[in-house]
């Protein structure tokens, strides 16, 4: 079923008015790399396509005064990973943004679109969760903020009401002596959907020897990407080293509730949740010590 109408509202207020008017019949179009295919393959009915890429607020990113990064929800991945300041301050975002699809996808696909598509295997959501990112949501009725770890509610499902728009993602400034990283496992080098993925964000003591804070998130092992509080708890207060890393990996394996499908078995995914947790932790530690 093809869309009946297409609109490219020039302002946020215009977009919110369209969503309020058309409700569930409307769908927000960002990069279209998921949505256009879903509509073409009759996996989703959309009456009105609301293209938000003419709205400046949704297609720009800015560093705020407190050092946090605000990314307009429809900003293409290629614009984000092409920025040297983002690369220096938020390398885990680059890890994710530079491996979603090939370049043709990256020039259109956005972190906001990846979040709203709410795939359990999404490659940017574990990173956003580990970094403590906040979703800024607007509708004509209200304005609210939701932590990314609470955004997805099931495969392809999330907290957005029919009239709500994800405007931006706000990523808190990195703490001193912190580092973060994302990795995924796929059977080839590029252009595939994660069998399992993981992100870590650690803060170390000033001497780099002790974990003082840690957030671990894993993907493609449950109906939604998961924050694993037990993995973070296994690290905090512990000396930086393989014993603590293995404890966190065990916590990720225990938190994983994977299914078996064409991409991998439940056992393989549970195993990978541990392996990838350990690997992203090692990279995050290196980055924290170099920061």
């Amino acid at each position, binding site marked *: 079923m*093809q*869309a*009946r*109408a*297409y609109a*490219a509202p020039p302002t946020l207020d215009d977009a919110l008015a369209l969503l309020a008017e058309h409700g569930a019949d409307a769908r927000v*179009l960002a*990069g*279209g*790399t998921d949505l*256009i*295919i879903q*509509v*073409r*393959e009759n996996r989703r009915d*959309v009456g009105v*396509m609301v*293209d938000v*890429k003419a709205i400046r607020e949704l297609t720009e990113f800015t560093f705020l005064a407190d050092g946090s990064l605000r990314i307009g929800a429809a900003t*293409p991945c*290629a614009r984000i990973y092409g920025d040297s300041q983002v690369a220096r301050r938020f390398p885990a975002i680059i890890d994710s943004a530079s491996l979603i*699809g*090939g*370049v*043709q*996808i990256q*020039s*259109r696909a956005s972190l906001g679109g990846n979040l709203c598509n709410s795939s359990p295997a999404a490659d940017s959501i574990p990173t956003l969760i580990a970094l403590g990112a906040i979703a800024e949501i607007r509708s004509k009725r209200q304005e609210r903020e939701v932590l990314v770890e609470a955004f997805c509610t099931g495969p392809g499902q999330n907290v957005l009401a029919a009239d709500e728009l994800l405007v931006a993602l706000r990523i808190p400034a990195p703490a001193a002596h912190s580092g973060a990283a994302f990795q995924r496992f796929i059977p080839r*080098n*590029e*252009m595939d959907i994660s069998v399992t993925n993981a992100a870590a964000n650690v803060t170390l003591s000033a001497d780099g020897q002790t974990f003082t804070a840690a957030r671990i998130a894993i993907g493609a092992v449950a109906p939604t990407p998961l924050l694993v509080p037990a993995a973070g708890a296994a690290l905090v207060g512990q000396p930086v080293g393989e014993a603590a890393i293995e404890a966190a990996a065990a916590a990720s394996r225990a938190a994983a509730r994977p299914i078996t499908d064409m991409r991998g078995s439940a056992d393989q995914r549970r195993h990978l949740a541990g392996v990838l947790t350990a690997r992203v932790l090692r990279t995050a530690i290196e980055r924290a010590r170099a920061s």
Partner: protein
Amino acid sequence: MTDKLHIQTTINGEEVEFLAAPGQSLLAALRDDLGLTGSKEGCNNGNCGACNVILDGALVNACCVLAPEVNGKQLVTIEGVADGANLHPLQQAFLEHAALQCGICTPGFIVAAKALLEAEPNADEDRIRHWLAGNLCRCTGYDKIVRAVLDGADRMRAATAAS
């Protein structure tokens, strides 16, 4: 009943106007309505790159863009790569290396390689292989394609140095 939208865009340097259905893909508009059949439909779901075009300087899959989205934008398609009867250095290199068999993927590879080499004239083999990860060829095994792109890069650098 859907109302078509009036779209004004620039394709290969020429101003073009057409009517687009709201849900029509850019690829369908190019091929079915504008007679630009050089961009190919391979997978029609964003995996194969056969429909690659350059939209406001960015390499995209035309199957994953809605035709109404190109209103006011600049497009380059495979038809705009050659300079009249003179083949682009990448096209000449593909010919000489026989970097194609059935040819369906070739326009996409050439447009994708052009987008890379215009931004990064010194891209090395590793960079080229990763850049072309979104372009699939089911005939050649890729080696001839990569060699043609490397050779095309040499020719493009030589042409730049000579001008």
